């Protein structure tokens, strides 16, 4: 066991650090910044070389992420493309699709989004209703609505999961496509969250034509294709030792700054809360490091990676609550006397974290069944065609 960089890792870190420090001023132009990093070999580190990547290790990618965070640099603009859409194209795309999309995605020449969730298909993703119907010419006509689509308003392309056969059980009638977000019939509407921001969108498909050449995988095989995407997503949420919500160090700094204004009793209570949240956050972080070590040995991310999101969401909530509380009387309003909105804003974002990317309840089912081997619940929808299931209740 060791936490030190290997000689190779240390050299890579020194290189990354020096490059970033030299170029850090350039990150404001988000697409150009990603292109700069791509040219430096820092984007898609783990992607295969033939896909435009570096063929590197998850540890090398983690080092890039750590060094970016150290300088307080923002995430890459095309993160969903890199983390989810790209890997799906790599695994299931045609040579033409790979050729056409992958390098441009890494350079942020094109931005990507992921079009899976629907109003009536949240946790039960496979219940989605967006229809793709085959035209006489072999292409597809898409109608329906997606929701919770990050970046849809800026994206050039999206990966789109549709129902192509409602007469078979719900997991078997799905097909995945690459869709041109500028195509006629695509409408994007921002969706405001409870904190007032609009990080997500609703996307409406109204007779949108998608060429059959943009199919990803076989018709009817969309669920298996989607699992590639979701497995990639799992790693980016609470995996690899990254924090969900605030960094615990940031909360500790904030509490330390405000502690002096509290009574001795309140200080003792605040330290208990900080200690509890901090231990949970450290536990999640070091468990992430164990996962990263496994990945670096070539093991696939298993369902146990979801544990990080489960506990990270909870400790983020508790730490943020403490951070709000130490504001004292200002905790009742949305900005402190100095106009600082950090903690009230964080507070209003967290309820969504226990839902987005797999709700706490669904993640517990997955871990219970796939990690602990506990029996599944009796399913009432097994073997029923999707169409029938709509009339069941």
């Amino acid at each position, binding site marked *: 066991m060791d936490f030190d960089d290997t000689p190779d890792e240390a050299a890579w870190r020194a290189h990354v650090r020096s490059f970033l420090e030299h170029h850090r001023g350039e990150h404001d132009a988000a697409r150009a910044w990603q292109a700069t990093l791509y040219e430096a070999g820092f984007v898609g580190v783990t992607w295969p070389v033939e896909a435009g990547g570096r063929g590197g290790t998850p540890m090398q990618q983690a080092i890039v992420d750590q060094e970016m965070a150290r300088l307080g640099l923002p995430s890459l603009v095309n993160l969903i493309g890199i983390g989810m859409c790209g890997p799906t194209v790599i695994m299931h795309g045609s040579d033409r699709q790979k050729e056409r999309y992958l390098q441009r995605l890494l350079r942020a020449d094109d931005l990507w989004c992921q079009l899976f969730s629907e109003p009536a298909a949240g946790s039960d993703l496979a219940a989605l209703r967006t229809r793709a119907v085959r035209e006489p010419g072999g292409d597809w006509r898409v109608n329906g609505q997606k929701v919770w689509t990050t970046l849809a308003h800026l994206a050039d392309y999206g990966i789109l999961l549709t129902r192509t056969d409602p007469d078979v059980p719900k997991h078997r009638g799905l097909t995945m496509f690459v869709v041109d977000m500028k195509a006629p019939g695509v409408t994007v509407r921002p969706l405001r969250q409870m904190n007032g921001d609009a990080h997500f969108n609703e996307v409406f498909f109204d007779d949108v034509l998608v060429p059959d050449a943009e199919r990803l995988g076989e018709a009817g095989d969309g669920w298996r294709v989607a699992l590639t995407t979701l497995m990639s997503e799992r790693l980016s949420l609470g995996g690899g030792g990254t924090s969900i919500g605030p960094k615990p160090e940031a909360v500790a700094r904030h509490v330390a700054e405000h502690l002096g204004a509290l009574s001795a009793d309140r200080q003792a209570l605040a330290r208990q809360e900080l200690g509890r949240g901090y231990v949970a956050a450290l536990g999640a972080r070091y468990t992430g490091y164990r996962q990263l070590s496994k990945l670096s040995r070539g093991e696939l991310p298993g369902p146990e990676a979801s544990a990080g999101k489960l506990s990270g969401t909870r400790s983020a909530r508790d730490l943020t609550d403490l951070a709000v509380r130490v504001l004292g009387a200002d905790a009742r309003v949305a900005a402190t006397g100095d106009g600082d909105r950090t903690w009230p804003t964080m507070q209003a974002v967290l309820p969504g974290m226990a839902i987005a990317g797999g709700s706490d*309840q669904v993640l517990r089912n997955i871990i219970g069944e796939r990690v602990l081997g506990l029996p599944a619940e009796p399913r009432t929808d097994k073997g029923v065609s999707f169409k029938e299931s709509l009339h069941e209740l």
Partner: protein
Amino acid sequence: MNFDLDQEHLDLAGGAREFLAASASPAAARAALEEGAAVRPGRAELVKSGFATITIPESAGGGGGSVLQLAVVAEQAGRVLAGPSLVTFARAAVLLAGDSRLAGLADGSLAVAVADDDGPVLDAIDGDTFLARRDGALVCGPGTVTAREPIDATRGLGDVALGETVVLAADAADRWRRGERVGRTILAAEGLGAAARLLEMGVAYAKQRQAFGRLIGSYQAVKHLLVDVYVEVEQLRSLVWWAAWAADRAPAELPLAAAAAKAAAATTLEHAAEAVIQVHGGIGFTWEHDAHLYWRRAKVDRFLLGDDVAAFDEVARLAMEATR
């Protein structure tokens, strides 16, 4: 013993629900947040309805009713996120007892708010007359209000700089404390209404939304979450009724009952809001859904009239004192 609402209370609750549901709503709370729209039903309507002035003696133009009656109304106000808070009226009625200004509170000619010593003041935004403590004395006067960016716009929180004040009572410690305790009771009643309404929303959604071929309310993970909220809400209801009854009939029990109700309201409303957002999934954390408006109420109310931590501490001190 007969620890339940009488028919008179049930009738009062029905009337209050009718008036408040017509004049306030989560949509109005959203508009207040979004566009700075006025809080509904607003002071004038609340006074006109007679509900806000229940605890003011008839001699001063009020209803001459009980704290329990006001608590019954406050539950209905909490259900629809009405404002300004009945807490403000209840406290002011206690503090102005025997003063000529009480008639102004009762007829709506004075817009009173009660300024605690710490930070943004409840219902300060449209207030013109502020009650405060100065060196143990109860003082009254105009004030300059600076609005604060709201989490829950229905609470009308603003910083108050008092202008020239007059002393209403030189040693007002007891009266101030009773005002706080009656205020905590009414605050808890508003929290009860909000939490009970959240629970209804969660239960209704769980009976209608399906996932994996079943209604989500049939899953234990969802069902038990809602049951835990139900248990908390019913216990809060008992504590609110007890505190209100004590305010009217058993002053020696009021300190413990009011602190317990205040603390339980803070935690119950917060748990209810978080659970019900979770039950709704994605739709629950959208701006257009009502859940976050109740969540906002929870996040603010827990810090009013002392926070939950202070209330639990007080409960413990009182419980230990009582054993001596």
